């Protein structure tokens, strides 16, 4: 239990997925230097990386493709109906990156740029493939996404707004059920059923471990907007889990 490490740690997130290792450890300032400005070294790394790619450095290209591909494929697969289409989207993205290298101006990080291309392509492929979106945004009677108002006591009650149908702790759910393949498939499907922006924000924040700042930069949304989307997405996924895990507790 407990909060996942790195959820709020920009340096940690950037470090884990932003750049291939051979670029991460270069430069005068070590990656573990506590006095280092967050972002500073990344910018230097980014410039070195882009310069190498422009110069046709094949091993730099290999590194960056290898470093990003699992994340890219996962993100694409939240939008597309099959894995094959997700793979196509990843491939198309790299071809677009190769073509666009000379136009990359460094206004965002290289990683954000690549993932923005991926997100646009995955989104449009996804829209073409699937029409219906099962989840609407906030249901009329919900207090917070996934929690209907009927689960709280009415205003006339002695404890208005207090739980009347409270959640049951998951600590009594056996670990192999809670962490099993069924639960993962459920979360994957729940994420895919969310409206595209909610899906992207939760996939990036909670699956890929990106910081709020990076997500805002990629999706071109405000911090407040990002938080609302994340709040809705997490609330709905939690309620799907709650329904599925009901009765799975052992006493």
């Amino acid at each position, binding site marked *: 239990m407990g909060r996942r490490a790195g959820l709020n740690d920009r340096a940690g997130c950037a470090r884990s997925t932003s750049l291939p290792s051979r670029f991460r450890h270069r430069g005068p300032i070590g990656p573990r230097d506590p006095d280092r400005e967050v972002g500073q070294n990344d910018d230097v790394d980014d410039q070195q990386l882009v310069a190498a790619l422009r110069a*046709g450095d094949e091993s730099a290209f290999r590194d960056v493709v290898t470093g990003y591909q699992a994340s890219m494929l996962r993100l694409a697969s939240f939008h597309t109906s099959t894995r094959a289409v997700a793979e196509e989207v990843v491939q198309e993205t790299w071809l677009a990156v*190769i073509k666009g290298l000379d136009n990359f101006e460094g206004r965002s990080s290289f990683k954000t740029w690549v993932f923005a291309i991926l997100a646009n392509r995955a989104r449009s492929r996804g829209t073409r493939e699937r029409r219906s979106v099962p989840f609407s945004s906030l249901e009329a009677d919900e207090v917070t996404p996934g929690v209907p108002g009927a689960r709280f006591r009415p205003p006339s009650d002695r*404890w208005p707004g207090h739980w009347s149908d409270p959640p049951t702790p998951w600590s009594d759910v056996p670990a192999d059920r809670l962490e099993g393949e069924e639960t993962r498939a459920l979360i994957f499907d729940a994420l895919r059923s969310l409206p595209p922006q909610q899906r992207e924000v939760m996939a990036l924040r909670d699956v890929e471990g990106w910081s709020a700042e990076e997500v805002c930069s990629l999706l071109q949304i405000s911090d407040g907007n990002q938080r609302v989307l994340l709040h809705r997405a997490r609330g709905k996924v939690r309620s799907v889990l709650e329904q599925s895990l009901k009765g799975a507790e052992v006493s």
Partner: protein
Amino acid sequence: MTSYEDLPCAEAVTMVTEYLDGTLATEERAVLERHLVICEFCATYVDQLRETIRLAGTLREEDVPVPLMDVVLEAFREARGT
């Protein structure tokens, strides 16, 4: 005044994302934390969201290699090769 009156559960649950992100104002955070100490139901709700986030993170473990390297490397060579 009790903390239930300070902050009804129906309101507490709307603050959780900001709470977990550490973006709640200090005062709101203190009110919510007081509520969570005495309200096991909201504490459970917060735990469930933490679990939801943690479990979503386990989707990362599925790292299946993609056989695209040859294709994109070929395109890279064509466009950038010397």
